């Protein structure tokens, strides 16, 4: 009787607490930071010309977003909140953390593995100003995620961003020989494609209640 009750209690708890997997999928698919929130579009539009660059840049975004989200969560909950400075300083400190982290990561990657540096590290300077990364940190705070949840959320957001740019690169490759009206060439048609992709991703929103 008590065994059954405790199992039931555990299942109820599991149902109520948002699982890490749910956070990850929400960040990657239904609440896609690029296609739903429209962040990080600058490099998304220009680097999606070639699949190889898209994959390299996407991978860099995943790593940086995950790590900086975790770092920023730690910074917020353990330094800023206790000091009562979270409202005024969160923006500027998140930016500083992201910039410093990217610099540090570039040096580490160059030292540790040259092959990794050539495929991923060369994109790191490009993403210092990627607003999706700052956005991920800020949204994570909005949702009151702690460090581990923040890490998972950041990873999910990064994966979602990478998914979007890789998909776009694939579509642009398919369209490379298509006759596009002159006025729409380049950014024009890319935004139209992105809009259609965003519409498709809305279809996922019914999957997870968050």
């Amino acid at each position, binding site marked *: 009787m008590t065994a059954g009750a405790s199992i039931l209690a555990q299942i109820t708890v599991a149902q109520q607490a948002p699982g890490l997997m749910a956070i990850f999928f929400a960040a990657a698919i239904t609440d896609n930071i690029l296609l739903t929130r429209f962040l990080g579009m600058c490099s998304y539009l220009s680097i999606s010309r070639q699949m190889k660059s898209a994959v390299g840049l996407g991978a860099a975004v995943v790593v940086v977003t995950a790590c900086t989200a975790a770092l920023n969560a730690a910074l917020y909950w353990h*330094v*800023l909140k206790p*000091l009562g*400075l979270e409202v*005024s*300083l969160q923006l*500027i*400190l998140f930016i*500083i*953390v992201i910039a*410093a982290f990217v*610099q*540090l990561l570039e*040096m*580490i990657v*160059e*030292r540790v593995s*040259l*092959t990794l540096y*050539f495929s991923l590290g060369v994109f790191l300077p490009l993403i210092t100003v990627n607003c999706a990364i700052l956005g991920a940190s800020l949204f994570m705070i909005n949702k009151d995620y702690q460090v581990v949840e923040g890490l998972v959320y950041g990873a999910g957001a990064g994966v979602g961003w990478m998914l979007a740019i890789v998909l776009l690169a694939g579509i642009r490759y398919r369209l490379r020989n298509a006759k596009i009206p002159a006025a729409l060439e380049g950014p024009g048609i890319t935004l139209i494609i992105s809009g259609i992709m965003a519409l498709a991703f809305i279809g996922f929103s019914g999957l997870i209640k968050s």
Partner: protein
Amino acid sequence: MALATLVVAGFCTAFAALLVVAERYLLNYGQCKITVNEGARRLDVKGGSTLLASLMGEGIFIPSACGGKGTCAYCKVKVLDGGGPVVPTEEPLLTPQELADNVRISCQVKVRNDISVAIPEELFNVREYTATVERIRDLTYDIKELRLKLIDPPEISFTPGQYVQLQAPPYGDNPDSVYRAYSISSPPSDESHVELIIRLVPGGICTTWVFTVLKEGMEVKFNGPHGRFRLTASDRAMVWIAGGSGMAPFWCMVRHLREKNIARACRYFFGAVAQRDLFLTGELAGLSKELGWFQFIPALSGKDQSQWSGERGLITEVVDRHVPCPDSAEAYLCGSPGMIDASIKVLQAKGFGEKDIYFDKFA
């Protein structure tokens, strides 16, 4: 408020310090040893620079035409060990055979650890020279002759036909110095001087500097001697064909042969469009008269040469008229790639073998 400022300042300082320390520790590759040609030379350099820059800093002058930007592929060096993975910018510049042989583009390879390389022997004789401009002479409206007096080292030894890489320093909008190759036109006997014949290239970095900035008395740097273009040691008859600033190596060669009393039958064809493009004609005509074995044949290809009593037509046509089928002769060419290609065709049609035709490959 004060607390907020303190926190921000504190974090900024902390991160800045972290980055400085990280750079010192992570990007510091320490001293690295470069072994050249299996021990012929051993260099001790500070790691972190490119292989090209490290070698040039130690006095080994690898040729380069694009200033280390990874596009001309002149700076190829064979890396025996310690080169690391091939940099993506190198791949399009190397053939599969070269990749298999560990040939690398030295301006793209960073020295991060001890490295062992193999370079052509002749590069060991290449030095960097500082010189002053003793004289700048206008030979035509777009060709100048530079006479340089060597300062350090004070003397140079080279084979007629070799070239030097002249350094054009940053000027105007140009951020970096650039090296361009010019054949030495003075004979080797004049050990303390180097003469160069330079033609203005529209939009050229180095030639524009020579024509607009360089003045007598100024100091210049160059490295050399480079190149394998030279006369053979045989006594076979020779045909020389040149145009424009291609005169340079031949002006050196003929004066050298005269000094050494080497009487090799030689016919020197010099092609130009109009009379204003000709230079040193008086001197060469004089040598023609003085030396029985040397004949100077200038030819003009432009229309309306009413004053001209010499040969007319494209230089290839003139060569075609004058040069008989060779039973034993050699041809030496120096000029623009178009002139060289056209001349090779004409000579081969006459029966000159590929190995009997010599030309400067850097042109």
